[in-house]
C-alpha cells in the first residue's frame, strides 16, 4: 500500500488549527465545567433533601445520557433559542462544560468526603470557621486526591471533543473528515488525526503525574523542609 504523505502535509495547517480548537474547546469546557461542578458538588452535599434534589438529578441526567445526544440537543434545540444560527464551536463548548460538570461534581464531592472527620474537628477545635477549615485544612488535602480523577476527566474531554465534528465544529477530527472527503483516502488523514490526539493526551498524562508528585507533600518522597534555624557550628561549604 502506498502512503501518500503529501495529503498530510497539505492538510497539516488545517489539522493544527483544528487541534487548536480542540484544545480550546476542551480547556474552556473543563474550566467552566469545574466551576459548575463545584456548585453542583456542594449542592449535592446540602443537608436539606429537597434542595439537594435538583443537583442530584443534574448529575443523573448528564451522566445517564450519551454525550453525542446532548451535543445534538444543545446545538439544534437549545442554542437556537440564544444564537441564530447556532455556532457549532460554542455549542460544543457548552455541551462539554455541562457534561463534564456532572463528572467533576462527583470528583469534588468524593475528594472532600474522603478527608477524615478528625481533620475538620481538630481545625474547628482550634477556633477556625467553616471557610478557614475548608481553605487551610480540607481543600489542600482533598485537592491532592482530586488530581488523578481530574486529569482523567480532562483527557476524556479532549477525546470526546471529537464528537464536535458531527455538528461541524472546526476541531481536529472535523478537519480529518474534510481531508478524507477531499481525497477519498482514509488512512492518511485519520491516522494523522489519531497521532495528534495521542500526543496531546500523552503530554497531559505526564502533566498529571508531575502535579501528583508536586503536591505529594505528606509523603516520604519529599525531603523534610529546612528547619527554621540552623544550629550554630553547622559546617558550611
Amino acid at each position, binding site marked *: 500500500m502506498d502512503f501518500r504523505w503529501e495529503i498530510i502535509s497539505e492538510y497539516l495547517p488545517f489539522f493544527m488549527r483544528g487541534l487548536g480548537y480542540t484544545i480550546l474547546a476542551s480547556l474552556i469546557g473543563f474550566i467552566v465545567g469545574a466551576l459548575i461542578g463545584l456548585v453542583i458538588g456542594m449542592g449535592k452535599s446540602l443537608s436539606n433533601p429537597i434542595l439537594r434534589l435538583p443537583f442530584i438529578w443534574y448529575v443523573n441526567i448528564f451522566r445517564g445520557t450519551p454525550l453525542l445526544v446532548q451535543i445534538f440537543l444543545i446545538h439544534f434545540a437549545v442554542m437556537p433559542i440564544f444564537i441564530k444560527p447556532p455556532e457549532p464551536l460554542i455549542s460544543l463548548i457548552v455541551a462539554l462544560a455541562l457534561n463534564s460538570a456532572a463528572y467533576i461534581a462527583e470528583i469534588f464531592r468524593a475528594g472532600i468526603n474522603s478527608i*477524615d472527620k*478528625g*481533620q475538620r*474537628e*481538630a*481545625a*474547628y*477545635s*482550634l*477556633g*477556625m*470557621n467553616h471557610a*478557614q477549615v475548608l481553605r*487551610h*485544612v480540607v481543600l*489542600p*488535602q482533598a485537592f*491532592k486526591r482530586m488530581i488523578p480523577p481530574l486529569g482523567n476527566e480532562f483527557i476524556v474531554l479532549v477525546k470526546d471533543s471529537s464528537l464536535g465534528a458531527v455538528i461541524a465544529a472546526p476541531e481536529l477530527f472535523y478537519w480529518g473528515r474534510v481531508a478524507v472527503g477531499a481525497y477519498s483516502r482514509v488512512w492518511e488523514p485519520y491516522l494523522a488525526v489519531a497521532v495528534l490526539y495521542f500526543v496531546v493526551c500523552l503530554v497531559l498524562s505526564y502533566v498529571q503525574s508531575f502535579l501528583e508528585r508536586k503536591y505529594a*507533600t*505528606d*509523603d*516520604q518522597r*519529599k525531603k*523534610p*523542609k*529546612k*528547619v*527554621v*534555624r540552623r544550629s550554630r557550628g553547622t559546617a558550611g561549604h
Partner: protein
Amino acid sequence: MISVKNLKKSFGDLEVLRDINVEIEEKEVVVVIGPSGSGKSTFIRCLNRIEDITGGHVYIEGTDISQRKVNINKVRTDVGMVFQQFNLFPHKTVLENIMLSPMVVRKWKKKDAEEKALSLLRKVGLEDKAGVYPESLSGGQKQRVAIARALCMEPKVMLFDEPTSALDPEMVGEVLEVMKQLANEGMTMIVVTHEMGFAREVGDRVLFMDGGYIVEEAKPEEIFNNPKEERTKAFLSKVL
C-alpha cells in the same frame, strides 16, 4: 469556669448523655473515667460543641454555648482540645501545624507565631522535629505536637479525649509527662482517660461516668480507695 447543667445528648434514638451536671473551677484538673460507652468522650466533645448539644446548658466562662447564636469559633479559641487520633494536618510540617491557627484565627504575625511555636516545641521536647511532616513521627511524638498545637492558641482550658489510648505502651509515659507538667503550671484540664495512675497522681477530682450519668465524683484518693457507689466499685475492681 465551666458549668454544665442538665446536659443531654442523643444520636437519633440513642441517648448517650442523660443528665450531666458539673462545675469545673479554674486551675482544676478533672479526670473522667468510666466503661466504654458510658458517654465520657461525648461529654468532653460537648464542652467545645464539636458535638451538637441536644439539651441543657454548657457555660464556658459564662457563655452558654448550647445557644445556636453564640459565636462558637470565638469560644473555641479559649478551649484547646487533644484527640485520641492526634488529627495533625498531614500536609503541613510540625511547625506549620502549630502556627496555622494562631496566624489564621488570631491573626498573629508569622514571626511571632513561629517564635511561640518553637518555644512550645522545646517545651514538649521536639524542637528538632520542627521541619518534618507528621508522618515521620511516632505516636507519642504526634500527640506531643498536638498538645503544642492546642497550647499555641493560649487556651484557658484544655480538653483531652483519651490522649494515650491510641499509643503503644512505651509511648504513654512521654505524653503523660507533658500533661503532668501542664497541670503543674496551673492549666485547667479535663481529661478522659483509662490511665488510673495519672488520675490518682495528677487529678484534683475524678468523675466516674456510666450510662450517660456522672455516677460519682470525688477526690482521687477517695474514689480509688473508698468508692461509694456499687458501679464505681465494680468498674474499679476490673481496671485496677
